[in-house]
């Protein structure tokens, strides 16, 4: 996975980049399965590897497929990302150990979900649609927003946009 990402960061042929990101998503999906997150894995496979790849390729067809050489050496971004990394590690090391059953997330809220009081075996679906149904409504709205937004942006226009395209 790391390999995929690092190569991805290096290569400048966008087509390769997109394919790599697809691969990356697949790996991510398998990893998620290993972590018992089957629903997430399924979605990630469908979305990350499927939809976004198609989207990217579609967009690429409309654009140039070679990335230009970066003009300047990007020290600042590097520094910023490293700072972020440091902060993340700093925080992460304080987290409960991996798969520690005593971790708060296992003690506090989740147990009730697993009691299956509304008799829906797939707890994820239960939580998604019922307990936190409002989040999902928001999620759907986000999708809707994106869709409508893209219509607004890409719909062919009879009247040309303001004459700034000199």
């Amino acid at each position, binding site marked *: 996975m*790391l390999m995929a990402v*690092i190569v*991805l*960061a290096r290569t400048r042929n*966008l087509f390769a*980049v*997109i394919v790599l*990101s697809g691969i990356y998503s697949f790996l*991510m999906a398998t*990893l998620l399965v290993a*972590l*018992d*997150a089957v*629903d*997430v894995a399924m*979605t*990630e496979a469908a979305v*990350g590897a499927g939809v*976004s790849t198609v*989207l*990217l390729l579609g*967009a690429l067809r*409309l*654009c*140039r497929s070679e*990335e*230009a050489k*970066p*003009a300047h050496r*990007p020290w*600042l*971004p590097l520094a910023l*990302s*490293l700072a972020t*990394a440091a902060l*993340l*590690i700093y925080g*992460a*090391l304080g*987290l*409960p150990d*991996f798969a*520690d*059953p005593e971790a708060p*997330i*296992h003690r506090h809220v*989740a147990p009730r*979900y*697993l009691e299956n009081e509304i008799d829906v*075996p797939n707890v*994820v679906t239960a*939580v*998604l649609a019922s307990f936190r149904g409002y*989040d*999902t409504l928001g*999620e759907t709205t*986000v*999708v809707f927003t994106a869709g409508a937004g893209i219509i607004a*942006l890409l719909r062919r226009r009879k009247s040309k946009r303001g004459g*700034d395209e000199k």
Partner: protein
Amino acid sequence: MIGHFSHVVTVLLMVAGLYVVMARGNLIKKLVGLSVFQTSVYLLYIAPGKLIGGTAPILAPQYTLYSNPLPHVLILTAIVVGVATLALGLAIAVRIKETYGTIEEDEIIAADNAVQDAEDARS
């Protein structure tokens, strides 16, 4: 330390993505980096939800120990949000390509500055 291996991986992925976003000038490349950045956050949530010997949170009589479903739910939402953002970003990138004729940030900035100068000249 070994207990946090997953976190370390997560961090590296995230930072790689973040770096691509900030360092690269190509609009589409940026977006790829952005999605990598977001995707890697998923691990941060999911990994701690795993329990050794636990199974996917789909209840069945033969299992007793389940991994934590809540992070899964959150990440499902997050994935969807991510792809929505990606799609929108691509749409904008395409329009930029059409109006500017390029998807390289530097060239776009250059074009804008040209217009800006023209304005200043007029004023």
